[in-house]
């Protein structure tokens, strides 16, 4: 399968790889939202960690991904896009935009869906930790 240049670039130079500590560390931190979506037996797992300010701005985003090149590129791109955005803005990102930007073929659309899910899931985790109830984030996260 031929990859687009952008996918290859993200694969070779992934942006914002990392985490804010062990799973235990981040679970205890209220300024960090963690989203882990996918499953090893399905061949892709994406982990997104967002450091969010009290004002609701995503100050830092870190990702890790077990998955194909397109999955790695989708999550790397997602971190680039949401950095500096407000929670509300981040929630407007759609998987179709990722598909378009990376020129993903139809069989790789699920990679972009996972990336969108990881954003929603990380934000929902942040909101849950901080007792924020917003109907939109919760329902969307549960929809997939």
């Amino acid at each position: 399968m031929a990859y687009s240049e952008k996918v290859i670039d993200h694969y070779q130079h992934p942006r914002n790889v990392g985490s804010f500590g062990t799973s235990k560390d981040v679970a205890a931190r209220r300024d960090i939202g963690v989203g882990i979506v996918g499953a090893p037996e399905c061949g892709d797992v994406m982990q997104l960690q967002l450091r969010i300010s009290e004002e609701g701005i995503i100050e830092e985003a870190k990702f890790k991904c077990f998955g194909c090149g397109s999955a790695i590129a989708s999550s790397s791109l997602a971190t680039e896009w949401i950095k500096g955005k407000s929670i509300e803005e981040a929630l407007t990102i759609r998987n179709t935009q990722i598909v378009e930007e990376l020129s993903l073929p139809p069989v790789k659309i699920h990679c972009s869906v996972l990336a969108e899910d990881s954003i929603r899931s990380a934000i929902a985790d942040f909101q849950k930790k901080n007792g924020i109830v917003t109907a939109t984030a919760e329902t969307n996260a549960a929809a997939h």
Partner: protein
Amino acid sequence: MALKLPIYMDNAATTRTDPRVVEAMLPYFTEKFGNAASRNHVFGWDAEDGIEIAREQAASLIGASSKEVIWTSGSTESNNLAIKGAARMYAKSPEGTKNRGHIITCVIEHKAVLDPCKRLEREGFDITWITPAPDGIVTRQMIADAIRSDTILVSIMWVNNEIGTINEVPEIGKLCHEKGIIFHTDATQWVGKMPTDVERDCIDLMSWSSHKIYGPKGVGALFVRRRSPRVRLEALIDGGGHERGMRSGTLNVTGIVGFGKACELCKEGMDADRERLFSLKQKLERELSSRLEVVQVNGHADRRVPHICNISFGYVEGESLLMGIKDIACSSGSACTSASLEPSYVLKNLGIGDELAHSSLRLSIGRWTTEAEIDYAIQAIEKSVEHLRTLSPLWDLFKEGIDVSKIEWQAH
């Protein structure tokens, strides 16, 4: 000598045609181009001579008589002809009825065996699908336990094409002969690489293919036993009655001549090739297992052919690994490399876990693989696995001491 990239390590998929094979084929395109069935002129005779020399070469490689070799288009056709042809010939009751006979095969066979068996199931035959243990070996005992009074055919591959494991074929052949059951083996990954003797090994029907043994694509053969027992098959392709009526159609003379030559070359160089490939494979597996953590060589530890190596690298997804070693042509059991988005059914059925199936790489070496290429592959794979592990959330969990398989994942 400088290393030439890309490196080919997908010899279980197909092989480069040996230049000596190409040379043998050339006259049959432009000079001896006759139809081997033309009986009344020299063009036809020349073509027929070429075919019969090739038949001798193919028969000699497997210890058969040349009359027992039927030309086909490849192993897929050979398997179809053997399985459907034998089942329909030895059916216990006519078309349209049930309980037409019992067939034994195995869940990790190639699709070219599984799919004909599924069709026969719809046609009223009863199939037992054996699932081997995680080491991948189909044993004589597994077949013995599955045999019934109405068993007419057993079809078990000699070598599994994904993991390279060697089944107990001579033992199963002997058992089938004792019980009077027809025994077919798909020997695509065995013949030409390992010593074969259809008499000693009690084979009734055996498929193999030219392009896996350095011959051209589009040609294969089916060994059909003529004595004790004489095996009869119902043809799949009707027409001019070529190949003793079992496979009509003008013979692919150039291809067959090349296939014959390829068989001859395999026989000549077999021992040396086998030793060389075995030591290269040992080096590959030994180095990767010692340099990297959480590496699993799939299939039985020893009962494997020298040219196929299947390895899983824990917490690294196979397609992304292929992308990282783009100068090495090989394949993966990862779902992402298949159109169906399902991981390898062979690895899945062995119960090694879907996760390790997604993380697997098949490297298959051949006549032109050099030690320098093996060294390059070891380094490239090591580097890529390490890079991908820095990206892998599963690797972090593993390092934190968390059992990834115990986590409740939200499957997508």
